[in-house]
C-alpha cells in the first residue's frame, strides 16, 4: 500500500499524501480522475472493482448539493488489496468516464447514473440500467421517498 501511495504522491503532488493517507480515499479533482486511473492501471491495478456514487444534499445556506463518486481498483496479485479514491462534483457537473480504460466501467457508471443521478462525461451510452426507461427521478437521492408510487402497478 505504501509503495503505490509513494508513487502516486510523486506523480500527483497535492492530491495524494503518502504520510497521512486519507482512510476513505483521497479526494481527486475531476480533471485528474482518468489520469489517476491510467497510472494505477499501469502499476498493477488492473482489476476494475466498482464505482459508487452518493448524494450529499446541500447543507446550510451556502452549501452546494454534491455527488461523491468513489472508484475502487484492485491488483490481482499475491498481496492483493483494493485501492480507492473519491471525486466530488456539484450536482450538475460531470465525472469523466473510465470506459476507454476499463470495459467494466460501462455498466457500473450506468447503474450509478440510474440510481444516484451522477453523470459521466464521454460515456458511450448513458441510460438507465436497473429501472424502467421511463422512470422519473433518481431513487438514491436523499430526498427521494422510498415509498414513491408508480401507478398502476404500485
Amino acid at each position: 500500500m505504501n509503495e503505490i501511495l509513494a508513487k502516486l504522491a510523486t506523480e500527483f503532488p497535492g492530491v495524494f499524501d503518502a504520510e497521512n493517507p486519507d482512510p476513505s480515499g483521497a479526494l481527486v479533482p475531476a480533471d485528474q480522475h482518468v489520469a489517476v486511473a491510467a497510472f494505477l492501471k499501469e502499476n498493477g491495478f488492473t482489476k476494475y472493482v466498482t464505482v459508487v456514487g452518493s448524494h450529499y444534499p446541500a447543507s446550510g445556506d451556502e452549501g452546494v448539493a454534491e455527488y461523491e463518486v468513489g472508484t475502487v481498483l484492485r491488483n490481482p496479485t499475491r498481496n492483493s488489496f483494493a485501492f480507492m479514491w473519491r471525486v466530488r462534483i456539484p450536482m450538475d457537473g460531470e465525472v469523466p468516464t473510465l470506459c476507454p480504460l476499463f470495459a467494466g466501467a460501462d455498466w457500473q457508471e450506468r447503474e450509478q447514473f440510474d440510481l444516484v443521478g451522477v453523470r459521466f462525461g464521454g460515456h458511450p451510452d448513458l441510460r438507465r440500467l436497473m429501472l424502467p426507461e421511463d422512470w422519473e427521478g433518481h431513487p438514491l437521492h436523499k430526498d427521494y421517498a422510498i415509498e414513491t408510487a408508480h401507478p398502476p402497478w404500485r
Partner: protein
Amino acid sequence: MEVRVPTRPNPHLDIDAYDADADLMALNMGPQHPSTHGVMRIKLFLDGEVIVKAVPYPGYLHRGVEKLCEKLTFVQIIPIVDKHDYVAPMTNEQAIAVAFERTLGIEVPRRARYLRTILAELTRIGSHLLWLGTFTLDIGGTIGGGASVMMYTFREREKILDCFENLTGSRFHYNTHTVGGNRHEIPDGWVDQVKAITALMKIRVPEYEELCTGNEIFNLRTQGVGVVDADLALELGLCGPNLRGSGVDHDLRRDQPFHAYDEIEVNVAVAQGGDCHARYQVRIAELYESIRIIESIIDKIPDGPLSSQRPVKSHLGVKIKTGCHYHSIETPRGELGTYIIGGGDNKSASPYRLKIRPPSLHSMSALPYLLVGHTVSDVVAILGSLDPIMGEVDR
C-alpha cells in the same frame, strides 16, 4: 492511455450503420425464459443465425435494497442482504459481517472463523452443484436428458441443506452471522454429518465429472465457445471462476485472506483457454478443493466463544465509523464487496450509503463482448457458464 485492441467486439455497435444489405433480426430472450437464471432479458440482433450485437437488460428484480439499507441497522441488514446471491446464501451474510467487522476493528474469535470457513466451503459445494445441474439442464434440455445431472446434484445438495438446517433451523436465508461471530452453536452430531457429506461427495463428484466431460455433446457445445481473454476479464471486473478460467491466478481466499484462510492452504484452480469448458473445469476443481479444505479443518474447530460481542440488546447498539470503507470476500461467484459510507459523526447506526459490489453484474456486462459472433444456441451455454444470479445483479 492504452490503445484498445481492435479485435474486441464493440458492444455499442450502431445497428443502423451496420450493413445496408444485411437483414438484421431483433430477437428478444426473456425476461421469462426456460433457462434457469432468473429474470434477465437479452436483445439479440441476428444476421441470419449469427449474433451481431447483444444488449442485456437487467433490472427486472431491482428491489431497491441499497435505499432500504440506509435506514436499517446491521442486525436488520443481514437478512436482507442474504437474498442477493440466493444460491450461496451463507457467503452473502459473511460479506456484510466481514465488512462491518473490518470497519469497526472487531475481532472474530477463532471458533467462529473456522465455522465460517466450513460454512463458506459447504456453500461453495452447494452452489457449484446447483450450477452444474442447471448448466447441464440448459445444455441438454429439460426433457432431452439434461435433467439427469440436475437430479443427481440436487440430491447431494439436499444433504448440504439438511446440514444447514440442523445448524441454523432453515434451509435458506439463515441469518446466522452477526458482527463479531456467529449466532448458532454447533449441535451434536453436526461434525459427523459434515464428514458424511464430504465422504459422499468424494464418490459423487468424479461421477458427475465423468458424465459431463465424457459427453461429446457437452464438449462440443462448450469448447471454444465464449472465449474471454485475461485482459478483458480484468478490465470488466470479472472474478471468481470466470476470471480463473481465463488464466488469471487470483483468488481472494489466498490473496487477501478472511475467515480462517490465513491458517489454511488454498490451492487455486486456474484454467487456460477462457472458454465455457475452462470455466467448467475450474468449478469442478473448486469442488474438489472445497472438499479437501473441509476435511482438513472439520476436526480442528477450536473451542471458545462463538462471538466476541455480547448479544446486542438493542439493534441500535453498533455504530458505523465515519468515512468510506470497502471490504470484500470470495464467494462462489467471485468477489462480493461492500462499500459502506458511515454518517457524519461516529454515532449513526445506519449506513449513509451501502453499496454491494455484485460479481454477477460484471459477468453480465461481459455478455455484449462474449456473444458476438456466436449463434443463438451458444447463448444458453455462455450464460450458464458465466453463472449470473439475478438477485445479485439487480439487488
